[in-house]
């Protein structure tokens, strides 16, 4: 599955990190880093990350 974060919207809160820390992380500079190609087995947690994003900046295909 393809994960996309709209970096115009993202405010780097890192709520997504708690749902799927193998996909999303915050760097030392506080900025969000994420994997764009993610195995389908991770869909449930990634969808949870989509749900909890305060800025609703994450989309999944």
């Amino acid at each position, binding site marked *: 599955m393809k994960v996309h974060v709209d970096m115009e919207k993202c*405010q*780097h*809160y*890192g*709520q997504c*990190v*708690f749902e799927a820390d193998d996909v999303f992380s*915050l*760097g*030392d*500079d*506080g900025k969000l880093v994420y994997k764009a190609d993610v195995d389908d087995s991770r869909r449930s947690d990634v969808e949870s990350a*989509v*749900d*909890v994003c*305060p800025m*609703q900046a994450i*989309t999944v295909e």
Partner: protein
Amino acid sequence: MKVLIVGAGLAGLRTAESLRGAGFAGEITIVGEEPHFPYNRPPLSKDALANGLTIADLEFKRRESIADVRWIFNDSALSTNYAERSVLLESGRLESFDILVAATGIRPRVLNVPGAEKSKFSLRNFTEAQELRTSMLGAEKLVIVGAGFIGCEIAATARKLGINVAVVAADPEPMFRPLGAEFGRAMRERHEAEGVKFHMDAKIAGYLGGDSATGVSLESGEEILGDLVVEAIGSLPNTEWLAGGELDLQDGVLVDSSMRATAPSDLSVYAVGDVARYAFDLFDSTPRRIEHWNLPTETGRRAGKSIAHFLTTGEVLVEPVNFVPSFWSDQYEDNVQSFGIPGIADSINVVDGELAGDCVVEYLRDGKVVGVVGVNTSAKLAPYRKRFQEIN
């Protein structure tokens, strides 16, 4: 089998998604009092106010799995008939249910003082945000009654737009109840540096102005005047329509860990989101109604799963409430993020940085960490948040 969800906000949406996710194939109806699909409210006091977002910008994505949900907009619940298993709507329509989910959220509290009938602004929904934005853009000075998150965020947005702001509040410091005096003082100083004038510990005697309020008078005799008044003094849960049954409606709807309302002879009523009151088992056994943004999602997910489990097995799902309340707030360039329940702490400990700048602050009760709050330190908060899982 029919699930009736009253309230078309985030909690109602997540309940419907969770029901479908857990395999519930029956009918789902969602009743909303606004003409909109569920939308994200936090931007209402920030981006929507500063930049005039459209409802399309704010609407949540709706999953394919809930495409068959029946939506009733522009209508709200008046009363519940528990014996007949139906809810009477404002329009006169009667909606039956097998399972009822209360997701009616909250409404702004109103200060009952002389002049309270004068029109004021409040900020809970999209329409109110549009009205406030329109009026703010033509104003030179805003009087904000209340110094909670909404009041402070509106103050910050107004300053960004070049509008003068006076904040009048009964509490000793802004955000006093959720974050305490020390953190509140530091936040007040940030606002003061941006030009906001605070009148704290204020005893409001009445609203001033003509048909529209333009200020407040204090018991001290002082008058604080502007072009318009925003009232942001907290909220009340919308539960009146649930009266007449066995539900505990003292402050929202008391529910158990499955989000089922505690009614001895009725297993079919649930509550989710801002209207639900329950014990946060990671902290203690006191039921609390906490209005933080992540909880409609947590409670909606839990309710959907519980209802599906109950309908399949006839048994109530028993699972502890492991939700960690969380909120964030943007004020100027500062971003405040909180995990846990800092409002129940008796002391704080600044563990990184200093209160006047970027910082991480632990909130303790009887020496145990019950909350952590960061200012511009999102990346540092993860290890602190993880500690809540170790509390009990």
